[in-house]
């Protein structure tokens, strides 16, 4: 009861000034992460990459969840549902359903194949250093796009807490993430991710309980309780409550908030399906997600940790639409003005007169979500460079120390590049992240799928598959960037609709699979030692 703030008061401001309490909470969280990182410092190369394989199933489930849930999950999903209604649910479903693919088709097989990185798998399975090089480049690029979205989220929250300019807060927030990824390494990262999960999930759930309780919805399970809010928005029902400005909590009848592919949202049926599918296969192809299976001791642990991970993820995803619904109904008065969609989660708590301390904790949770993901991404990206490019291709004689040094240099270069691009503010947080998924879905996912389940898939097929995926990626991004800078290319409308950067994988991935099959048939068969490894070690076929 103490957490429920005093009644509404006029003249509140959602933005602008330096906020002391949230600043203290955020600083405390970051210090906690650093302390946990220091207590679990990486020693040696295998520690740096894969944390010594010493984490429990539930623990690595939490690490998977917090590694996974980024600013896009914490802030971005609610933003899309707030703005585009039912279309936003394609993100909710896509980002969870992908784990079924990952578990059923890949998790324990990847663990049994026994490599450290996604690139390692592809390089060895397709016995090609060219493939190894290009997948490493793609892995770095994916981590890069994904991080840009995260830095955007970190920037928004630092701006909200410290009242700084967006640019300044991207630089400050980014530097803090960088510093702490460098000192901790991956053992620190995994332990940290467990702590980060607990912080981010409590930060996200507490205001949900408060909002449903305050406004007399079914608060024991807020994830069910907000259903009536959705119906109230659709019908335009009157409520007896007011927001923190004293505006009545009621919308005009707005079926577009919940009805599927509503014309008012500008998104149609095809876009829903394509986005959902692209996000699902992207999930199963993201290097930093796949990499998590190497930190568990056994294949069975890989399976169970995915299942735990998915459950922990769903705790947040079940709750996210609640913020969109309350955000909608609490900000309906035109006097509130246009809100920055990506911060709607925090604004919703403020508009609902949730205690400022809790709101501060919520903002710190958002930063925490972005932190855990960025550190995982920086490790995935830098290890793709130091392990897969530097050690395997450039300097096979390199010592462990040299590798770790290269990994650290790569981390710094990547973080600086990400900061620069974040300052351009190209798109919404969740959309930037969706781009990374489409790339992963049409390049890495098809290679894993066929690589694991068909021994006939060989180097020629792999190269063809990667070429198709890579071509669509470059093509779609090229059109998008030209569009952003006002250059109209032929067929821009067609490409913008069917091959949009957020979901072009819906067609690119199946084509990559077909290319793999067709060209595998034309090339030299897969060498026997690889087929033997695949059959015996990965699938347990003994003769």
């Amino acid at each position: 009861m103490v957490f429920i703030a005093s009644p509404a008061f006029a003249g509140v401001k959602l933005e602008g000034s330096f906020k002391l309490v949230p600043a203290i909470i955020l600083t405390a969280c970051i210090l906690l992460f650093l302390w946990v990182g220091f207590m679990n410092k990486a020693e040696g190369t295998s520690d740096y990459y894969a944390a010594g394989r010493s984490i429990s199933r539930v623990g690595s489930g939490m690490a998977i969840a917090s590694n996974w849930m980024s600013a896009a999950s914490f802030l971005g999903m609610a933003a899309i549902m707030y703005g585009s209604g039912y279309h936003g649910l394609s993100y909710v479903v896509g980002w969870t359903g992908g784990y079924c693919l990952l578990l059923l088709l890949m998790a324990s097989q990847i663990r049994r194949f026994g490599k450290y990185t996604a690139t390692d798998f592809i390089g060895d399975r397709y016995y090609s250093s060219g493939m190894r090089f290009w997948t490493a480049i793609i892995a770095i690029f994916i981590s890069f796009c994904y991080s840009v979205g995260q830095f955007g989220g970190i920037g928004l929250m630092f701006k909200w807490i410290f009242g700084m300019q967006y640019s300044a807060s991207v630089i400050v927030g980014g530097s803090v993430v960088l510093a702490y990824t460098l000192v901790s390494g991956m053992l620190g990262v995994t332990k940290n991710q467990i702590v980060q999960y607990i912080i981010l999930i409590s930060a996200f759930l507490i205001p949900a309980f408060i909002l449903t309780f305050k406004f007399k919805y079914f608060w024991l399970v807020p994830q069910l309780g907000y259903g009536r809010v959705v119906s109230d928005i659709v019908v335009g029902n009157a409520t007896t409550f007011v927001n923190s400005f004293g505006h009545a909590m009621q919308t005009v009848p707005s079926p577009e908030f919940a009805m599927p592919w509503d014309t008012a949202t500008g998104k149609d049926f095809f876009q829903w399906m394509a986005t959902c599918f692209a996000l699902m296969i992207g999930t199963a192809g993201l290097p930093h997600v796949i990499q998590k299976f190497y930190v568990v001791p056994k294949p069975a642990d890989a399976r169970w940790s995915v299942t735990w991970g998915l459950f922990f993820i769903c705790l947040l995803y079940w709750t996210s639409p609640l913020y969109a619904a309350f955000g909608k109904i609490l900000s309906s008065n035109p006097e509130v003005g246009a809100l920055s969609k990506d911060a709607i989660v925090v604004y919703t708590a403020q508009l609902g007169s949730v205690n400022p301390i809790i709101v501060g904790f919520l903002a710190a949770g958002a930063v925490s979500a972005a932190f855990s993901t960025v550190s995982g991404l920086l490790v995935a990206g830098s290890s793709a460079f130091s392990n897969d490019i530097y050690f395997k291709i450039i300097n096979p004689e390199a010592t462990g120390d040299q590798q770790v040094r290269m990994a650290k240099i790569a981390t710094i270069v990547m973080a600086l590049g990400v900061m620069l691009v974040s300052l351009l503010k190209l798109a919404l947080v969740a959309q930037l992240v969706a781009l990374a998924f489409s790339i992963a879905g049409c390049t890495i996912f098809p290679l894993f799928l066929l690589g694991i389940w068909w021994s006939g898939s060989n180097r020629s097929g792999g190269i063809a598959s990667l070429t198709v995926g890579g071509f669509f990626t470059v093509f779609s991004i090229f059109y998008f960037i030209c569009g952003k800078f006002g250059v109209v290319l032929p067929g821009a409308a067609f490409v913008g609709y069917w091959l949009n950067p957020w979901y072009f994988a819906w067609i690119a991935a199946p084509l990559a699979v077909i290319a793999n099959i067709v060209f595998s048939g034309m090339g030299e068969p897969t060498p026997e030692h690889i087929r033997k490894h695949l059959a015996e070690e990965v699938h347990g076929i003994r003769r």
Partner: protein
Amino acid sequence: MEESLSYEVNFFKPSTPFLKENLRAITIGLLIWGLATYGFQILLKIMETPTTEATYVAYQQIAPKLADGTASDEEKVAAANTYLALLGKSGALLKNDTLKTAFTSTVYDLLPGDSKDALLAAATKAASDSKVDVEFINTALGIGDNSAMKAVVPFALIEVSPDKLAMTDAALEPVMDKFFIHNQSFLTDTIVFGFPFHYLYTALFLLALFVLICLVYCYKIDSLMKKYEMEKSFE
């Protein structure tokens, strides 16, 4: 060519009893996953009928009368309410001057003579300050107890000149079609736990189903491992 190679692995041709059972579990899991996710959305798409909001249904009858000046006062009130409901849907619509002109013109037309000047004054003031007294408009439109509609009124006003009123405009039709027609069916109109059913299904149930698929699969594989005594040699 395939047959001549040893160590073949093929998703569609499992070569050991373990793989056979493993692949059956995977296939069933994927079928449920695919049908539940995409099958339901396709069903939603098949069942849907474009459904027009009541206020717009009424408006479509009134619009021609507004154009030729034969609309009654009740009809003008109904039309103004429709404009207001549309303006309240999004911040972007509040920038649509044609729509605001139609609203303000209609209200001007239906108000009694002495209130007309008050409206013009309010519209002028509202351009710079939303704290404007619009109670007489709320009363005239019969929205005294609808706070969502009342909140929009100050933002819906725009300066009009009494000799050039435009109570309706052909340009409004596409905007209204876009915002007032929704894809509905019994799947969206049935309320379960307070939710429109399709929303509950997609936002909550599907996620729970995903967790369940994973859980069942984990148990299934663990028991397969025991059955074929592969736990030690394989895991």
